[in-house]
């Protein structure tokens, strides 16, 4: 067997200079055929060398196995080979002419969650293996949940062992339907289903002739073509300072890897935590200065002014700063035999900063098999919970769903120095927030690039003589949201303010006309409106959005899109449901009563009232003018 004949071709053309890299993780147990699949990918892509093959042939034979056990390729440690289990995450490499691949192979049995979280933390894609003869098992659900928690951008459900079910399309379709049903509870945005047989080689590298009903890509083709940098946040510039380079009096540069966003010489920056501002002078590399630095570029930044900056500081854009806080909420995966101790002081490592931390409060534990929340006093090895943390100094973060680099941290036990936990920040916490398991990230279409603001929000605000804001009116139909918003907009207009009014019914004509009123469609409706509001906000407007928006999660999501907590003003418009039914401005309650429609919020569908709205306006007690005055005073 020759190693990569494709590679030879590729190298003579030097096309390797255009190759990119995909990191993926594989989850599943030995029984699902995971190691066989990896062995197959390596073998069929001609990435296994003769001496490696001979070595595993020898070992297979000496342990009495009939066929060559490809799993031996991935199980590297003595204990693993002896016990025929995989203990630790193993990294494997292969390349095709199109792409270099790094596989983080995570074991299925022991230490499952800890290893899967580790492998998932750097992955662009996860392959979840499902045994076609067994269907979706608890374990598959667990894999999917962790992939969504770690926000791996792409999921592949590889329905393996199709040979055991006679390559039956129906079996495949049922598994797809089962998985989709379950995945609805999660935030997975790109799922691809591929029927394969790793053992026989169907649809792994070469298209199967035994499943002509399947028209999609083979697994390898999919891996070669999926978008790689989908997880990069290209909007918010964040540069954690790793190291200061100071060879002499005349040069002082701040080194690091761009965590997100981009920057050019001349751009205005702010240094955290000092808050001092300056401009980028140069983006220095040994290969010459750069005109622009993108996510993942390792560069050295010099600035125009003399500002004291050291490791652990963060350079950001002057008008786009992360949350700066020492109390926040997070998901936490516990990775140590010794359970989390809420009274113990740990060390938190976040970007290039280490601070002391208390994990004050465990809100709940997530049962990774059922996704149910459970009350708990502590977190044990391989458990995931929602926690509240308090650090000795503020850290500079973004929610993990928006920025993985500034939203992730590890917990270190100062007595052993061992890494004991891995966290994903949800949000800052001044108030207690309850956010569901299903969260969203920023969706990005393929092949698009974020166009930065031509004119900054601050410049627009200065010209408009106002501070941009989002006023989010939530409440049941008939509570008076639109009436108050319209009156308020008129008042602002008369005062010379620049406003945008987004109304639920208008948006559902055209823009969101494809959406119904199921919980998922409602969520999508609010997701789109949230982004739309942010765009208008960035253009310096006072945005008034009136949406029933019955779910707390959805409103939290909208809030998370805004740079500062005070940018999002939540106004809960409420009244006695009977009053609303009597008002019935759109005739909806009448329709609901006659059974013409169902799922009307406040009638037969749930409305989750905010616990800590910025303003609550009860229209049974307050006139429109009074409400308008109250809001104007507040903003």
């Amino acid at each position: 067997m020759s190693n990569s004949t494709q590679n030879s071709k590729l190298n003579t053309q030097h096309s390797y200079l255009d190759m990119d890299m995909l990191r993926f993780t594989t989850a599943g147990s030995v029984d699902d055929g995971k190691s066989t699949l990896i062995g197959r990918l390596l073998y069929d892509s001609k990435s296994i060398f003769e001496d490696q093959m001979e070595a595993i042939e020898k070992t297979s034979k000496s342990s009495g196995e009939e066929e060559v056990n490809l799993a031996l390729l991935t199980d590297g440690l003595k204990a693993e080979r002896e016990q025929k289990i995989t203990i630790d995450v193993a990294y494997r490499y292969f390349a095709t002419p199109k792409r270099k691949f790094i596989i983080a192979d995570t074991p299925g049995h022991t230490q499952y969650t800890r290893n899967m979280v580790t492998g998932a933390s750097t992955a662009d894609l996860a392959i979840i293996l499902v045994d076609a003869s067994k269907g979706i098992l608890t374990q598959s659900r667990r894999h999917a949940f962790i992939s969504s928690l770690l926000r791996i951008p792409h999921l592949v459900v590889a329905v393996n062992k199709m040979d055991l079910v006679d390559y039956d399309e129906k079996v495949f379709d049922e598994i797809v339907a089962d998985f989709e049903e379950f995945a609805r509870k999660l935030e997975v945005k790109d799922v691809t289903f591929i029927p394969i047989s790793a053992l026989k080689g169907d649809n792994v590298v070469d298209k199967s002739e035994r499943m002509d009903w399947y028209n999609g890509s083979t697994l390898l083709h999919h891996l070669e073509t999926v978008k790689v940098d989908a997880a990069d946040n290209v909007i918010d510039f964040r540069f954690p300072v790793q190291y200061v380079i100071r060879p002499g009096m005349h040069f002082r540069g701040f080194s690091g890897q761009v965590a997100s966003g981009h920057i050019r010489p001349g751009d205005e920056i702010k240094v955290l935590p000092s808050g001092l501002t300056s401009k980028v002078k140069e983006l220095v590399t040994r290969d010459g200065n750069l005109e622009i630095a993108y996510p993942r570029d390792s560069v050295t930044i010099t600035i125009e002014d003399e500002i004291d900056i050291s490791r652990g500081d963060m350079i950001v854009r002057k008008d786009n700063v992360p949350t700066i806080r020492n109390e926040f909420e997070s998901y936490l995966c516990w990775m140590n035999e010794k359970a989390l101790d809420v009274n113990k002081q740990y060390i938190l490592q976040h970007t290039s900063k280490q601070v002391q931390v208390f994990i004050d409060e465990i809100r709940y534990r997530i049962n990774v098999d059922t996704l149910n929340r459970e009350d708990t006093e502590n977190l044990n090895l391989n458990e995931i919970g929602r926690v509240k943390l308090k650090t000795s100094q503020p850290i500079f973060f973004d929610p993990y769903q928006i920025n993985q680099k500034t939203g992730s941290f590890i917990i270190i036990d100062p007595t052993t120095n061992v890494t004991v936990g891995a966290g994903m920040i949800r949000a800052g916490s001044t108030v207690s927030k309850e956010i569901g398991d299903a969260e969203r990230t920023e969706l990005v279409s393929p092949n698009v690039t974020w166009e930065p603001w031509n004119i900054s929000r601050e410049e627009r605000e200065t010209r408009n003589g106002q501070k941009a804001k989002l006023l989010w009116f939530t409440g049941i139909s008939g509570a008076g949201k639109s009436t108050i918003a319209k009156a308020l907009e008129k008042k602002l207009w008369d005062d010379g303010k620049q406003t945008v009014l987004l109304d639920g019914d208008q948006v559902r004509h055209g823009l969101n006309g494809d959406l119904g009123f199921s919980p998922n469609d409602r969520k999508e409706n609010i997701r789109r409106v949230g982004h739309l509001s942010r765009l208008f906000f960035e253009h310096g407007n006072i945005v008034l959005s009136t949406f029933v928006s019955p779910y707390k999660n959805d409103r939290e999501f909208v809030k998370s899109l805004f740079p500062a907590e005070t940018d999002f003003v939540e106004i809960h418009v409420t009244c006695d449901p009977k009053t609303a039914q009597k008002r019935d401005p759109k005739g909806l309650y009448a329709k609901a009563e006659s059974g013409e429609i169902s799922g009307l919020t406040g009638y037969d569908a749930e409305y989750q009232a905010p616990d800590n709205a910025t303003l609550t306006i009860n229209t049974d007690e307050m006139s429109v003018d009074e409400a308008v005055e109250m809001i104007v005073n507040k903003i």
Partner: protein
Amino acid sequence: MTALKSHSHLKELEDEGIYVMREVAAQFERPVLLFSGGKDSIVMFHLALKAFHPGKVPFPLMHVDTGHNFPETIEFRDHLVEKYGVELIVGSVQDSINEGRVEEETGPDASRNALQTVTLLDTLKKHQVDAALGGGRRDEEKARAKERFFSHRDIFGQWDPKNQRPELWNLFNGRKKPGENFRVFPISNWTEMDVWQYIAQEEIEIPSIYFAHERKVFNRRGVWLADTDFVNKMDDEEVVTKVVRFRTIGDATCTGAVLSDADSMEDIIQEVASARETERGTRHDDKRSETAMEDRKKQGYF
């Protein structure tokens, strides 16, 4: 704004390597870069030059000298040290033998490869090194596939593969107790092919013995070993002159040459691409047992 530039795999690996270098400089007090004169350590040094530009590399190179070197490697090492003005620390296996710390192996397969571990650990201790940058790659060997970027060593310099710290995202935990240290592998994610492609792309100087040349060699169990003073030949081992090159550079007693007329970078890349054996296939030290590498690594080997 122009479209987001897609990162080539080499650019991404380079950015990652530079990031790791800077983490080491920031998190440790007395790091060293383990330098063998082989291509992997040369690439590492190149990354260090980039990581600290326009400053100097803020740590010394450390060479564990078995005394059984190819002279070209030592010449190259000294040339590099002079050119970039870096400090060089040499740990000598011969000294360890003279001091009675280790005993020379005997017989035809005698090698100082295993003895190096003691010299390495002694030298690290002597210089109070708290982090040693190594050019180990996860694709090299199955035990290395389980290695972390930041690999913790106890006060005996030993590796406990079953009890490694989890390593997530790019958050590297370098905390340790006094006397403990770390091995750090900035090119963990590189393959042999990546290393060669990168050397070609960056036009990095490498020792001449990587290119095809005439050399006196003899064949031992399928491996072409160089005829040097350090190797005990058996009676039936005949020395012949062949055109060879080295795919990996280690101790001259256990590193085999490959028959090759690849005398340019392009030819080498071509040859690596079509190779049918792994790079360490020419290493006798790995062939002693199936877990030879894991066993040596636990002891504190590179």
